[in-house]
């Protein structure tokens, strides 16, 4: 179990950085709005960062056994299919994908 002081540091760091990212742009809105560099990065960054997080969390939750790899592959496929077919209703796609993974891992 991690120490309480360590958890408190994580909470403080998470708060300070997240609040700054949300609040500072309101103070410096005008120069940011006209920066080609910043608006271009705004357009380019999200897809790639989210994809890296998806792959990273996938490799964290998947073990080395064939069963869990098959479970992960089918759960990702179901998540993608349900998301695109249900009109991007995140609750549905995350719910069914996770359910498929839980069932496959526990029965496999």
């Amino acid at each position: 179990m991690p120490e309480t002081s360590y958890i408190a540091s994580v909470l403080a760091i998470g708060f300070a950085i997240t609040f700054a990212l949300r609040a500072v742009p309101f103070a410096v809105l005008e120069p940011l709005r006209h920066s080609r560099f910043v608006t271009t990065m705004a357009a380019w960054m999200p897809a790639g960062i989210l994809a890296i997080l998806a792959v990273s969390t996938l490799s964290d939750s998947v073990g080395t056994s064939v069963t869990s790899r098959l479970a992960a592959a089918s759960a990702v496929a179901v998540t993608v299919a349900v998301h695109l077919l249900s009109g991007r209703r995140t609750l549905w796609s995350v719910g069914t994908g996770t359910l498929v993974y839980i069932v496959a891992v526990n029965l496999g």
Partner: protein
Amino acid sequence: MTPSRRAEVAAGVQASLAAGLGMYPIGIAFGLLVVQAGLPWWVAPALSVSVYAGSLELLLIGMITTATPLATIALTTLLVNFRHVFYAFTFPLRVVRNRFARIYSMYALIDEAFAVTAANPHGWTAWRLLALQMSLQTYWVGGGLTGVAIGSLLPIRLEGLEFALCALFVTLTLDACRTKSELPSLLLAAASFSFARLVVPGEALFVGLVVFVASLVARYVLVGPPEPTDA
């Protein structure tokens, strides 16, 4: 409260319901994961009040459990939450005059609050906006507490529940890639993360994100910004 204020608060709560339908169940999964990871129950509400950014909170459960260095946590927070910088362009904060209310409104500028105001850009008042944001935070903290309670009352380990975070990022990636113009970013991300996995397997997320951002800067310097679309 005057009738018009009451109407504005009601409108804000009304606007929060659709997003809340997604946030409350994911909050329950978040609370369950905190208990399953062996962390104290109060970590769930503490994260949801201090950090208050769902996908990062889910990531932090795993990072806290494995005692990840604080520098890695800081960089991950910076990169995962960096998208919030761009919400200020359109978020209707200008309608909020009270100083403390403004601070709360900026603090509670989560993806869902941005999405709701971006989808309905007009008609916002201070009471409506704050009612929206406070409702959203209530769903999220309430979901986490519900999950913690369920996890403590039913001490069965549900193996595979952590896949919810992966599934969430898969859907967010799909939502971020609606056009072919995202393909170069995806390829650079794939290359950056593969490189990091090979070279520094223990710190692949940290190094992968840094290499990806560096590759975007290089792309900007070499190729320049995309052509403005006049169509």
